[in-house]
C-alpha cells in the first residue's frame, strides 16, 4: 500500500491535508480530507459572560468574522428574549452581513479559485495564483480586489474596523450609520453592481465553456439552507429548508431553533472536523451540502432583480445543479445579490435611524442561525443564572460540507490518480480544485495567501518515504 499526502492544502482558508491510500497497483483504496487544527472555542468560552460572546467568537475567523459575530448576537438576542429588533438595527445587521458575504465571495473567487479556472488545473504552479492573475489579467484582478475592498468598507463603517470590530450587542446595535457614511458607501455602489454583474458572466462562461467542469468531482446530495417566508433566498434570518438531491423537500419551514432535531454530528478519529448528517436520512445517506450552491438551488426566488434573472439562468439547464464547480457561478450570483441589496438598504431611510436597541429580561438559552458565505452557521448557547455561558455548540458552515468534500476528493482521485504510475503536481492540484470549490474555511482563521507550501510524500506499507515532492 502507498500513502500520498497533500499537506497542507493551499489556497483555502485554514490548514488541512489530504491522504490517498493506494494499493500495489496504484488503485485508490481510500481518500480523506483531514482537518488538522483544533480551535476549542466551544469549550473555552464556557464560564465567560454572555454579552462578551459575539466579540469573542468572531475571532474564529479572519475572513467571515461578521457571520460569527451576527450568529452569536442572534443567539444572545434569544437569551435576552428579544424576538424583534428595531427596524434600524435589523437593517444595519443585514447591511453588515451583505458587506461580509460580498467581500468573502470576492476574495474566494478572485484571489483563491480563479487562477485554477483561468490558467487551467495543470498550468505552471508558480504562475497559478493571484500574482499571476495580476500579471495576465490586471483589470480583472484589480476589480476583484476592489469588490472585496468595498465589502470591507461596509464592514468598517458599521463595526469600526474591517476585521474584528464591534457592532451587534444584545437586542440591537451599538452605533448608528451617519448620513456621511451612507453617502460615501452609495458613492460607488453602481460601479460595484456593474462589476458584480460582470463577475457572474465570467463565472458562468468559465463553467459552461468547459464541458469537463460539469462533471468534475460531481457528487449528488441534499441541500440545506435558510429560506425566507416566501421561499426567497435568505442570508440573515429565516427558516430551515432542505431539498433532496432530486429537488423535493426533505423538510421546509422549520424554525432555526429546531436544528437539534434535524442534525446530528458524528466524530471520526482522523479529523478534528465533525461529520453532520440529517437525522431523518441516517448517518450514511444523510450527508448534505450548504453554501452558495445549496442556497441558489434551494430558494424559489431572489429578492433582487438582477440576481433573480441570473438565478433563473442558472437553473434553466437542469435543476438542482450538483456540479461542485457550479459553486463558483452560484457564488457570483450571490455577490451580485449582495451588491444590489446593499444599494437598497442604503437608500432606505430607516438605515440612518437612531433607534438601535430593545431591552428585555434575561433567559437561559439562545440559538442563532445565519447563512455565512460558506453556508449555514449555527450558534447555540445556554447560560447559568449568573449570565455565564455553560454550554456552547457551534456548527460551522464548512463542517456541513465535510462529507461532501471527502466524496469529491474520492471522485477526483478515482478519476485522475487511480492506476497511474506517476502522480503529477497537476493531478494533486485537481484534488485541491475540488476542495476549493466549496470555499472551505478549515480553521476559521486568518492566513496569508501563497505562504503554505505543498508537500507530497509517497510512503510504503512500512512507513518508508518512497518519494516526495514539494512546492
Amino acid at each position, binding site marked *: 500500500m502507498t500513502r500520498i499526502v497533500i499537506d497542507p492544502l493551499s489556497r483555502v482558508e485554514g490548514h488541512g491535508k489530504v491522504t490517498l491510500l493506494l494499493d500495489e497497483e496504484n488503485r485508490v483504496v481510500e481518500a480523506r480530507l483531514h482537518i488538522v487544527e483544533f480551535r476549542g472555542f466551544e469549550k473555552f468560552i464556557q464560564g465567560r459572560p454572555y*454579552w462578551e460572546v459575539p466579540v469573542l467568537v468572531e475571532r474564529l475567523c479572519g475572513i467571515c468574522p461578521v457571520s460569527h459575530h451576527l450568529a452569536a448576537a442572534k443567539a444572545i438576542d434569544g437569551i435576552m428574549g428579544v424576538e424583534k429588533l428595531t427596524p434600524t438595527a435589523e437593517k444595519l445587521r443585514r447591511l453588515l452581513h451583505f458587506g461580509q458575504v460580498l467581500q468573502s465571495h470576492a476574495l474566494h473567487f478572485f484571489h483563491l479559485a480563479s487562477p485554477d479556472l483561468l490558467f487551467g488545473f495543470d498550468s505552471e504552479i508558480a504562475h497559478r495564483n493571484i500574482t499571476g492573475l495580476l500579471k495576465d489579467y490586471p483589470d480583472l484582478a484589480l476589480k476583484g480586489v476592489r469588490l472585496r475592498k468595498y465589502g470591507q468598507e461596509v464592514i468598517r463603517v458599521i463595526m469600526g474596523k474591517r476585521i474584528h470590530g464591534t457592532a451587534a450587542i444584545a437586542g440591537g446595535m*451599538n452605533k448608528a450609520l451617519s448620513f456621511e457614511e451612507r453617502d460615501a458607501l452609495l458613492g460607488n455602489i453602481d460601479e460595484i453592481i456593474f462589476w458584480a454583474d460582470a463577475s457572474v458572466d465570467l463565472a458562468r462562461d468559465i463553467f459552461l465553456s468547459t464541458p469537463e467542469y460539469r462533471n468534475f468531482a460531481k457528487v449528488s446530495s441534499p441541500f440545506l439552507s435558510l429560506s425566507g417566508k416566501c421561499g426567497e433566498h435568505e442570508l440573515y434570518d429565516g427558516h430551515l429548508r432542505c431539498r433532496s438531491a432530486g429537488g423535493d423537500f426533505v423538510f421546509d419551514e422549520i424554525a432555526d431553533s429546531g436544528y437539534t432535531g434535524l442534525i446530528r454530528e458524528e466524530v471520526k478519529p482522523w479529523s478534528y472536523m465533525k461529520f453532520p448528517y440529517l437525522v431523518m436520512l441516517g448517518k450514511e445517506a444523510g450527508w448534505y451540502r450548504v453554501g452558495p450552491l445549496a442556497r441558489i438551488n434551494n430558494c424559489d426566488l431572489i429578492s433582487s432583480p438582477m440576481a433573480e434573472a441570473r438565478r433563473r439562468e442558472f437553473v434553466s439547464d437542469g435543476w438542482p445543479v450538483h456540479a461542485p464547480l457550479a459553486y463558483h457561478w452560484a457564488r457570483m450570483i450571490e455577490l451580485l445579490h449582495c451588491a444590489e441589496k446593499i444599494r437598497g438598504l442604503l437608500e432606505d431611510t430607516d438605515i440612518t435611524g437612531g433607534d438601535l436597541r430593545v431591552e428585555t429580561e434575561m433567559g437561559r438559552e439562545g440559538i442563532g442561525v445565519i447563512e455565512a458565505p460558506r453556508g449555514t452557521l449555527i450558534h447555540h448557547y445556554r447560560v447559568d443564572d449568573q449570565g455565564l455561558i455553560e454550554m456552547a455548540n457551534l456548527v460551522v458552515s464548512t463542517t456541513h460540507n465535510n462529507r461532501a468534500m471527502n466524496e469529491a476528493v474520492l471522485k477526483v482521485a478515482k478519476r485522475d490518480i487511480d492506476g497511474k504510475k506517476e502522480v503529477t503536481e497537476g493531478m494533486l492540484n485537481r484534488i485541491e480544485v475540488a476542495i476549493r470549490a466549496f470555499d472551505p474555511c478549515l480553521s476559521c482563521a486568518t492566513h496569508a495567501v501563497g505562504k503554505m507550501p505543498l508537500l507530497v510524500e509517497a510512503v510504503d506499507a512500512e512507513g518508508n518515504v518512497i518519494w516526495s515532492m514539494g512546492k
Partner: protein
Amino acid sequence: MKAISLDGIMAPFAEGHTVMDCALAANIPIPHLCYLPRCVPHGSCRLCTVKIDGRFASACTQPAMEGQHVEIDTEELRQLRLSLLRMLFVEGNHYCPSCEKSGSCRLQKAAYDEGMLDLHYRPWYPKREMDASHPDILIDRDRCIFCELCVKASRDVDGKNIFGISGRGTDTRLVVNSKSGLLADTDISAQDRAVEVCPVGAILVKGLGFEIPIGKRLYD
C-alpha cells in the same frame, strides 16, 4: 514660586504636591496606572517611576522639592516601563481582543503608548476565580492588576470598604469583604466609585459590554 525641573522644563508646585501632581499640572505626561487624584497614592504599579537627581523613585509618592531634576522620557526609563508593563500582562490573563474594556483600558493604553509589541516574558496563565454572583456587577480577576484603586474608592469615597487585596506574591488576589467572599453578599451598587474606577476590565457592570462603538471609546 518653588519649581522643579521635569526633563528640563521648570514646573511650579505648591506645598504638599508630589512630582506626579506637579507634572500633571504642567501637562507633562508620566505613565501611571494606580495613581488617582484625591486618593492617597501608594506607588504599587511602579509605572510612574522616574529618576530624581539620579535615583529611581515613583512620581506619585515622591514629594516635590525645590530644585529637583526629574528625568521622565529617557531610553532607560522607557525600557523600565516596558518591562513593568510586560510583567503586568504576563502575571494575569489579559486577552484584549475579546475584552469589553478594550479601547478604554488604561493598561492597554499604557502598553500602546510605550510601544509594547510582545509579552517578552513567559505568560503565567494564573487560574483565578470569576465572581458573577452579583446581579449587576462582575469581577473578572484574570484582569486585575492589584492597583488597589477599588479598595481605596470603596473605603474612602463610597464608605463601604468592600474590596481588599489578600495573599502574597503569586497568590495575591482581589478579595471581597463579605462572609461568603462573594460580591452578591455586599451592598455594592453599579453606581459606586469603586466600580467606575477600575482601570482595566476586572470590575464590570453586567450586560453593558461593547455598547460604546469603536471610535468613541475613551482612548480611541
